[in-house]
């Protein structure tokens, strides 16, 4: 409820459409309700008096009312669509603005998949539900109530039938919705089981094949599949029972109408047209009831969507700009970690434990260690993608929390493990690194990243379009572009997070050479699983299990660190390729 209330604030500018939509729907409904009454008049007055002129007059009125109804319906559609589209577009834009500002921790807590679903499906559901609410959910109840009122005024003799039939109908719908809601929840659970089994089969196909458990898997799937079928059967058969029962109740009401009406006609207290009108209104009532119960389900779904959207709305962005910010002229690039500990979840396992080290401006720092030892996490703290739980990180002696975020990140060139590029031209992507970049800037950076050789071969050079997900470049090409993007900033601190994994040995040497020459004054962090990439570093941090196990130059580590020796030894075979 609270969620809806928050979202509805976005409807304010469009309140006029949201009011006009239902109003126009009222016109359509009242015209619909008028039809049977006019028909009754034609029969009871026109035919009874053999009055051709009267019949034609009323016939034309009926046509006119149909036209007015059409205007009402069309108008309602126009305004409802206006209200819903604007409403949804505003929400979408608000949610997007918020998510773009999310810190990594915020994004992690939602998960990319969920955020995408919220921004696409959930908002679309809200839009659809809004249209339905403004139109059908107005139409259904209006038809229902309107019919009852009209029967009260024009066919009061037959009204007692409604007193019996309507409560039964409503009770039926209520009972079935409650029951089917539960049953379909069970279906969903069974469906989840089937999906899990399926996913496991796909992910574990090698294991299944290795143990040759085809038959076992068949049995396992059979049991969940069977469960799904049974639950589906129960649920669907129940749902499909509702319709015949409702039809039957209405039909019995019609028979009651014919019987009571027949008696009254024979007594001379009722005219035949009234019976016909009554039958018609019964049908309209039924239609109204059914359509509103269907819309109710869409609205229920919209509520859970609204809940998810508001979660984004409520999320607190946790990396905040500090109030006392320091604004030095230039960042030199001295980086120091002091007793830094960090965990991804508040009370979870520490991924980094008491990390302390110092990198002088212009030094090259190599970081090596097994997967999960905390290498990537360590460097992510430098541009404040996350804040440490305890301890502090200093750049040029200033705590990074006191450096304006924009300034801090401006000074850092970060090449992440996964080369994420965006759809657009190469120029557009390199432009992430620097505003208003020139061709010279680009070719310089591309040269350094060993990317010019393949860019120059492209027909459109820097105008080359990348597809979404960059499916039209190889892994190595992507990594080189993502390096060029970072180089182009001319950063004071450069972070290369295992960014050469898909690059051939030759190109890597080119990059390393260029780094040495062009970035002598830049502090460089290189994370790599290959010893060869960090062998020349001024300082190598050997990470194990969230701690710095050892620290020193290659030569020093060979004698002091067992872990390092092991890593080095296991790679010597591969290392031969580079030596």
């Amino acid at each position, binding site marked *: 409820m609270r969620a809806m209330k928050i979202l509805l604030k976005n409807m304010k500018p469009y309140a006029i459409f949201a009011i006009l939509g239902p109003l126009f729907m009222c016109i359509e409904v009242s015209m619909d309700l008028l039809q049977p009454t006019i028909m009754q008049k034609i029969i009871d007055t026109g035919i009874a008096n053999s009055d051709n002129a009267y019949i034609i007059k009323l016939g034309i009125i009926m046509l006119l009312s149909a036209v007015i109804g059409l205007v009402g319906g069309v108008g309602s559609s126009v305004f409802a669509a206006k209200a819903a589209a604007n409403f949804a577009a505003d929400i979408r834009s608000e949610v*997007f603005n918020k998510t773009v500002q999310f810190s990594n921790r915020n994004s992690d807590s939602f998960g990319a998949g969920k955020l995408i679903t919220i921004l696409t499906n959930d908002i679309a559901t809200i839009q659809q539900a809004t249209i339905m609410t403004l139109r059908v959910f107005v139409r259904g109840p209006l038809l229902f109530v309107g019919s009852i009122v009209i029967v009260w005024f024009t066919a009061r003799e037959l009204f007692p039938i409604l007193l019996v039939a309507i409560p039964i109908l409503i009770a039926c719908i209520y009972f079935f919705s409650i029951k089917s809601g539960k049953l379909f929840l069970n279906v969903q659970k069974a469906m989840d089981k089937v999906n899990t089994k399926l996913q496991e089969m796909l992910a574990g196909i090698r294991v299944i094949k290795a143990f040759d458990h085809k038959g076992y898997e068949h049995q396992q799937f059979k049991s969940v599949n069977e469960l799904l079928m049974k639950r589906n059967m129960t649920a669907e058969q129940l749902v499909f029972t509702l319709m015949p029962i409702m039809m039957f109740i209405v039909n019995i009401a019609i028979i009651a109408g014919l019987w009571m009406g027949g008696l009254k006609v024979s007594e001379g207290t009722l005219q035949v047209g009234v019976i016909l009108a009554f039958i018609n209104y019964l049908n309209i009532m039924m239609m109204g009831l059914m359509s509103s119960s269907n819309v109710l389900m869409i609205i229920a779904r919209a509520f859970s969507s609204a809940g998810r959207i508001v979660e984004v709305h409520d999320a607190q962005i946790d990396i905040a700009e500090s109030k006392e910010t320091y604004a030095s002229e230039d960042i030199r690039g001295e980086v120091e970690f002091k007793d830094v500990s960090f965990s991804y979840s508040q009370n979870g396992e520490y991924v980094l434990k008491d990390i302390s080290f110092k990198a002088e401006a212009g030094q090259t720092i190599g970081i090596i260690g097994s997967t999960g030892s905390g290498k990537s996490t360590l460097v992510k703290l430098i541009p404040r993608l996350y804040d440490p739980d305890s301890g502090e990180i200093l750049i040029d002696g200033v705590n990074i929390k006191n450096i304006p975020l924009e300034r801090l990140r401006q000074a850092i060139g970060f090449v992440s493990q996964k080369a994420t590029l965006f759809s657009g031209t190469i120029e557009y992507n390199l432009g992430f690194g620097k505003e208003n970049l020139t061709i010279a800037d680009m070719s310089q950076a591309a040269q350094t990243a060993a990317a010019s050789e393949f860019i120059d071969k492209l027909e459109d050079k820097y105008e080359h379009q990348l597809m979404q997900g960059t499916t039209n470049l190889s892994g190595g090409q992507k990594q080189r572009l993502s390096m060029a993007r970072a180089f182009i900033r001319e950063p004071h601190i450069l972070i290369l997070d295992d960014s050469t994994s898909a690059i051939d040995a030759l190109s890597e040497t080119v990059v390393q050479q260029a780094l040495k020459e062009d970035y002598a004054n830049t502090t460089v962090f290189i994370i790599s699983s290959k010893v060869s990439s960090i062998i020349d570093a001024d300082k190598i941090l050997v990470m194990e299990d969230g701690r710095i196990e050892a620290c020193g130059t290659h030569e020093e580590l060979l004698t002091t660190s067992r872990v390092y020796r092991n890593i080095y030894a296991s790679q010597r075979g591969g290392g031969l390729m580079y030596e």
Partner: protein
Amino acid sequence: MNKPISQPRPTVMSRARGPFGLKQPTEKPKDGKGTIKRVWRYMEKQKVALIAAVCFAIISTLLGLLGPYMIGVIIDDYIIPKDTAGTLKVLIILASVYLAIAVVTWLQTFMMVRVSLRTIRRLRQDLFDKLQTLSLRFFDKRTHGDLMSRVTNDIDSLNNALSQSVVQIFTTVLMVTGVAIVMFSLNWILALVTMVVIPLMYFITRKLIKYSSNYFIKRQRDLGELNGLIEETISGNEIITLFGKEQKMNQQFSKINERLRHSSMSADTISGFLGPINNFINNFGLAVVIAVGAVLTIQGHASVGIIASFVTYSRQFFRPINQISNLLNMFQSAIAGAERVFEIMDETPELVDKKDAIAVESFKGDIEFSEVYFGYEEDKHVLKDINFQVKSGERIALVGPTGSGKTTIINLLMRFYDVTAGEIKIDGCDIRDYQLSELRRKIGVVLQDTFLFSGTIMENIRYGRLEATDEEVVASAKLASAHQYIKHLPEGYHTLLVSGGYNLSQGQRQLLAIARAILANSDILILDEATSSIDTSTELEIQNGINRLTEGRTSFVIAHRLKTIENADRILVIYQGEIIETGTHQELLKRKGFYYDMYESQFKHYNI
């Protein structure tokens, strides 16, 4: 009397149709006829139920025609002549007709749901089984998402179509024809008047759909573009933060969002017209029927009862026509979905047993690779001219840099893939001559990527040998040094693992995988980097277990830490897809080649 036409089902699955389910451009099947035939073959098994459902559908439609007719008769022949006794008699008959309609309609849907769900169950199971017969090459080519959606979404849409639209399309046609016949037999003039409305309705709907489809395509395009941007932004959020591009992304988003605002407004407006217009045509038709009917009645060519019947008939007539295009769309996209399902069914498994494939009791364990070449893609050999022989009971180690082809050798031995050239023999027979399942069952393997299933730890170890007792499971866990940590879990062996086993550490998972392989008790054992994430002291412990296990059995070990393979009977050094050195540890050291270099660099700093 109003037949339930297309009543949206409140199932969660039907939601998969997408947010704008109503009038999206429908996908057309490529070979509709062929696919329908194949779906039919699946339904054939339930022919009796199906025929029953169709019969019920016919009966309920015919009875549905009877209702309005009887109302007309009651009004004209009994109520207007004031014959109350007669009225009562006919009303009782009418009541029983209505009761029959309700029962028969219910029976028909009951049957149809049954037929459809059973068909679907078989189809889903067959697809699952089929997927399992396909070789790894097939899975290498496809994403999990694509395969998942075929088993879930595509099959569900077929279910919807089978349980609803098939019978509805059928009854709609029946109903429309029936109503037309009855109307003409009641009063041909009124019938003609009613019919005039049809072309009008058809014409307007067509126009509207054609007109609106432009808007839908536009909205779909904008939506696609926007979703693309959303996806990119969210998955690339880190980069956007790092480079401070939040504002720029917002601007791009706004541009597309504005376009979508307008295109979706137009699309929704136009599609919203369909309801009022149909309503208008209904009302228009009703007005004409009543007015003309009244005039005819005065002239003696019709009666009040006939008007009453026509009012109901015209409703029964128009509604199905309104909905038939929806039904056909639904049916069409279901067939397209079924086509995608059958596409998988038609995949031929790359690896199949020969006709006279050998079933083996047990392997002695002699293995021979002769002139084996292999590539995952054509022309790109990962293995080149691999030759070696292993005598029963030998312990073989494979070493070499990452990507040199060690795991590929294992993949070939397990026959996950077939060699491109050359042959692999076990006990003197080409492995392609053995029954595939027997072959794999005799080889126990701990794979590089340990995959565990959702379920308890007990169940996961037992996966190695399904009929093993609890005691045997615990025993093999002890051998694998897994017992130690399992014991300390709050639920012990009954601890539930999530799919993939990701609530355990990589090392713990490896220990379980080893226990699983130990339990399998196979003739040939393969350990592919099985201990890479396990600390050194535990590794030594397991080593003892493994040594006992591999006693007298042929075994292959791949390891980066050379210490673990020192005691192998023979070491094969693989470099860039070729065997460059073979021999025992001592022999290889003496040779002072590649292995010597590797070993030296790894151990020269230990004082051994």
